[in-house]
């Protein structure tokens, strides 16, 4: 999606200051197994694979040296926007969701590698009928926090809640696939009037659940890992109020929540580690503190005193002001984890206003990535992007059509030659960015304008006030040629990255195909790749489409895969970066004594 509207300020400051994490929805992540082949900083990218039934069997492997007990204290500028699984989309919410929400599938994270495994289900599911039918079987011993049994009816109830009128914030992939329409609420209104979806079938033993989709979704196993499809017990469903007091089936349950101040999760004694291949759950409790900005939190973690020794930076990374200090002080550096955000930051080229491919290619050549990254804080702020699919996407193949890695400062001579060839020297380019969200934009606009001038363009900078930025650039009839933008995938396959951004059939006011690319061969290629039931073949198809898009259409100028550094206190153990949610893996942390 576009970087969050709600957390707009955070989203945009990510790009520029490197201080906070992408708050956009991001439920996916991970990279294309061994095939992703590194990238600029090889070895730092995670690998993604689909696990076996054994991988899906609990308990999670012990972390050497870890001990039970104590309290971990994550600190964040903001409270969670939602706790109701069906209303969770942002990774910030997913981070805590992992402590009390369980879905049919989930990601097992181990040393940067992510494996899709069965969480509530015994495995990642059985697909048939070309991706139109999926069947899952639940594990034994699954319980809610009151000790009652978790059944497939609870799984179904969670999914049916996604149709209710109050769950507008959550994911919609499954609902659309089950009903065959994006306007799925006109077909089914949710479970509250006693009706169930015909397309979701449960067995009498309450162990097996089968989805009959209207459209083939060979990647549904990934989709089902989104917390929007987490289980909810009908008996404990308080509808709108569930957002404030969710019922747990994970290792922790909500114990106290003071809105925007603090939230405490304590151990759920009915959770059985033997059912859970993902979560370790060493601390007795987690106490979240909300309010302090990233800079304050960094200073506290640098000072490392008192209970802050058990603190971690939750979802706001070390800001530019402190990054050098942290990276050059070994004692501090040793208390960090880092990783790339799942999202891609880029500049969308309005293909409706700039129909000439050569001009779009010239823009790609001319763009001064190096100068931009220097403004963001240099190499520690992230890696140059040259592809649409990020390094953590399944099957991603690295390429660099416009020579950005060799000449990150931009090749204005080549750009000028292309412009001349197209007869478009002096082409006017209206560039826009969200004004007021971050000072860095005020600096990058200068280096961008300079590079464009040098390449023979006539750049016009026309910023839009940050709070209405997305509303304006997502208008079909806008007056911008190049627009700063960002997108993160919902799971680590090409579909969630390419379809929403480049499918010509979804162009609309408020939609995310901001490039307004409307090319029939692209639409056809998207449909074809989406229908492939073999995961390897599908991954290869998306990777090929990635390259073809940049080569033959150049609808965007990729900018960066941003890197995030998080500090943790000296008494925190088991720190690991979650490539899925771009945060700590909370359930693997433990408190040292």
């Amino acid at each position, binding site marked *: 999606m576009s970087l969050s509207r709600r957390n707009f300020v955070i989203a945009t400051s990510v790009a520029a200051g490197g201080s906070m994490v992408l708050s956009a929805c991001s439920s996916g992540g991970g990279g294309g197994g061994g095939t992703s082949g590194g990238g600029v900083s090889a070895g730092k990218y995670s690998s993604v694979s689909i696990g076996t039934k054994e991988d899906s069997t609990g308990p999670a492997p012990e972390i050497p040296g870890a001990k039970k007990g104590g309290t971990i204290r994550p600190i964040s500028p903001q409270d969670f*926007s939602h706790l109701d699984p069906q209303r969770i989309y942002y990774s910030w919410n997913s981070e805590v969701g992992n402590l009390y929400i369980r879905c049919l599938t989930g990601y097992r994270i181990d040393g940067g590698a992510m494996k899709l495994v069965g969480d509530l289900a015994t495995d990642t599911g059985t697909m048939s009928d070309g991706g139109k039918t999926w069947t899952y079987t639940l594990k034994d011993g699954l319980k809610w926090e009151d000790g009652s049994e978790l059944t497939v009816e609870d799984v179904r109830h969670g999914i049916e809640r996604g149709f209710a009128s109050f769950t*507008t914030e959550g*994911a919609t992939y499954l609902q659309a696939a089950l009903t065959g329409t994006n306007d799925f609420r006109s077909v089914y209104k949710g479970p509250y009037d006693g009706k169930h979806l015909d397309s979701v079938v449960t067995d009498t033993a309450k162990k097996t659940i089968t989805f009959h989709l209207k459209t083939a979704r060979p990647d549904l196993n990934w989709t089902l890992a989104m917390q929007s499809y987490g289980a909810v017990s009908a008996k404990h469903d308080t509808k*709108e109020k569930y957002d404030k007091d969710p019922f747990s089936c994970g290792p922790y349950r909500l114990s106290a929540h003071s*809105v925007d101040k603090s939230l405490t999760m304590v151990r759920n004694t009915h959770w059985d580690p033997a059912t859970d291949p993902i979560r370790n759950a060493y601390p007795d409790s987690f106490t979240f503190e909300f*309010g302090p*900005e990233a800079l304050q939190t960094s200073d506290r973690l640098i000072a490392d005193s008192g209970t802050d020794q058990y603190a971690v930076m939750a979802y706001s990374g070390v800001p530019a002001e402190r990054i050098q200090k942290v990276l050059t002080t070994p004692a501090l550096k040793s208390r960090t984890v880092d990783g790339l955000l799942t999202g891609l930051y880029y500049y969308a080229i309005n293909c409706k206003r700039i129909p000439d491919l050569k001009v779009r290619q010239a823009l790609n050549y001319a763009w001064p990535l190096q100068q931009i990254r220097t403004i963001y804080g240099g190499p520690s702020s992230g890696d140059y992007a040259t592809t649409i699919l990020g390094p953590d996407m399944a099957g991603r193949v690295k390429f660099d059509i416009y020579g950005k890695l060799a000449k990150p400062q931009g090749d204005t001579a080549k750009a000028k030659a292309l412009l001349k060839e197209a007869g478009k020297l002096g082409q006017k380019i209206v560039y826009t960015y969200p004004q007021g969200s971050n000072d860095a934009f005020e600096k990058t606009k200068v280096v961008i304008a300079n590079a464009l001038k040098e390449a023979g363009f006539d750049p016009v900078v026309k910023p839009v006030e940050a709070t209405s930025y997305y*509303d304006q650039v997502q208008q079909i009839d806008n007056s911008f040629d190049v627009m700063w933008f960002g997108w993160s995938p919902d799971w680590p396959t090409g579909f969630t990255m390419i379809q929403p951004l480049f499918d010509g059939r979804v162009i609309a006011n408020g939609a995310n195909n901001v490039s307004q690319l409307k090319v029939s061969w692209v639409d056809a290629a998207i449909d074809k790749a989406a229908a492939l039931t073999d995961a390897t073949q599908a991954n290869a198809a998306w990777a090929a489409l990635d390259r073809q898009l940049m080569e033959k259409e150049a609808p965007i100028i990729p900018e960066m895969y941003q890197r995030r550094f998080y500090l943790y206190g000296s008494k925190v153990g088991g720190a690991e970066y979650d490539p899925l949610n771009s945060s700590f893996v909370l359930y693997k942390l433990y408190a040292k004594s």
Partner: protein
Amino acid sequence: MFRFILRRTFSALMILLVISAITFVLFYVAPRDPARSACGKLCTPETLALVRRNLGIDDPLPLQYWHWLAGVFVGRDYAGLGHCSAPCLGYSFTNHEPVLGLITNRFPTTLSLTLGSAVVFVVLGVGTGMLAAVKQGRALDKIASSISLVGSSLQIYIVGVVAMYYLSDQWGILPRPQDSVGFSQDPVAWFKGLLLPWFVLAIIFTANYTRMTRSQLVESLAEDYVRTARAKGLSRRTVFFRFAWRGAMGPIVTILGLDIGYLLGGAIITEETFGLHGIGALSIKAVRDNDLPLLLGVVLVAAAAIVVANIVVDAVYALIDPRIRLA
């Protein structure tokens, strides 16, 4: 007195009404769509319409305002959210909670912060001002005046951060500011957690009160009736407190009342600096999140605090000075 309160309460309500209407209109002048934030990633027009209905923003503007206003008096039903009982200030777009609840949740922090720092700055400011006035022209007076000048030119976000770094992080004298423990839960923790913010917030006000107290006292010490009191044989102390201070109190109480009213509307910078969660932080959140009901709520709280402070100040002034009549 009764008529005074009746009349002033009525005009206060009118003021709040006007402020709410202005806020309402201004909010919709800005080109943003509050519905988008509650519409999922792949937002469809149908979902957007549903969100609008849920938030109650699919009606024409005057009707929306009418609904809001009616909600304040008789409560209101929200399509997807349930009933919000009177006085209903609306449902926060982004917090999915009644605005009133959010405000009452935040108010203890603001109240603690305000009253605590008021105690500090009144004691320090008025105390120093009294000393300076008594020792007029002497070294003590000059020192106090210089310190107050320096104090008034300091910024909370600098003093606060520096004080926090040394006092809490480096030397460990005070715990880090926090407001998660309320007075009723653990008075000691509450006190310790707010000590630093009280003092830092007080720095700025203290200087003001020192200067004001000094000048008011210098003025009233020169009043004829003070001389008369001395001529009657009353001691300096009696004259100072019973006569001079009584005369100086009026303006000080006035400013104090307005300052407290202002602070009850939220100490934005202080709350941001110390990571506290009062009305100030809530206002920032409301603006950031484009959250109209919440914004209306905090604006009204701030306005009401000022308006009520004015009424209280006028009433107290009349108690202090019998020449003032309330009508």
